[in-house]
């Protein structure tokens, strides 16, 4: 009976040790992940910033946007200029496409991985058609 008591006493103590260690390991893995995530956020934020700048510049690209009487309309693309597929912005690692709600699409570059999209308007003759511009990486 004494031996049985001893065995019954040792088992929970070991379990507590194991649980303690698991808790410590989880705590330190958590800390490790915080630092790793920090690094990932810092690195990916550069690409995000460049993507937002690229969106802003493309929305005001005179080679693509609608013009009337020497005035350029930011965010309104000219369908004739889009058809020429000539952008005045050096795209580098980025690419983009402009799609309207009718299903027409104008792709500049490969556009394999889509990052962000913004609503835009396309001027087709006298009509204005809603659409979106997608920036790709």
């Amino acid at each position, binding site marked *: 009976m004494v031996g049985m008591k001893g065995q019954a006493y*040792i*088992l929970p103590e*070991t*379990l507590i*040790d*194991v649980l303690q*260690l*698991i808790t*410590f*390991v989880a705590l*330190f*893995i958590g*800390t*490790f992940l915080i*630092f790793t995530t*920090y*690094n990932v956020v810092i690195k990916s934020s*550069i690409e995000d*910033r*460049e993507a937002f*700048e*690229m969106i*802003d*510049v493309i*929305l*005001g*690209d*005179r*080679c693509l946007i609608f013009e009337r009487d020497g*005035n*350029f309309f*930011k965010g309104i693309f000219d369908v004739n200029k889009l058809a020429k597929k000539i952008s*005045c*912005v*050096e795209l580098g690692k980025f690419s983009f496409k402009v799609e309207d709600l009718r299903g027409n699409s104008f792709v500049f570059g490969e556009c394999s991985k889509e990052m962000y999209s913004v609503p835009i308007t396309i001027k087709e003759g006298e009509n204005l058609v809603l659409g979106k511009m997608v920036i790709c990486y």
Partner: protein
Amino acid sequence: MKGTLLTYLLQFFSGVIIVVVILMSSTIVSYHIFQKNWINSKLQAEVLSSIISSLSSSSFDYKLKIYVGNSCNIRVSSSNITCTIGEESYTIKPIIPNYVELVESTSLCNDGFLEIVKIGDRIWLE
């Protein structure tokens, strides 16, 4: 005995993880302490690059005043912006359309203010 062996193994691996976490966190912290000037010059260059990109996408003329204090060693050359703080410098190429010209210029920073001027398709620092 099996329970004890498991405990030792867990102690060993937790020790390894603790060492890795301490090494990694100390590396990151020391990196930020020793590279402070480099990081600040990079941040300054990125902010100015974003501002210039934004200006270049507009057809209006602008004259922007930005407070930079003593961190005023900023230069534009060959379509690049170079910011220097201390002995560390960072160069960045802003995203602008090819019809916009970044005029070679250096910041003067009267009273700690940097001026970015855009007239027509030309942008420069004053």
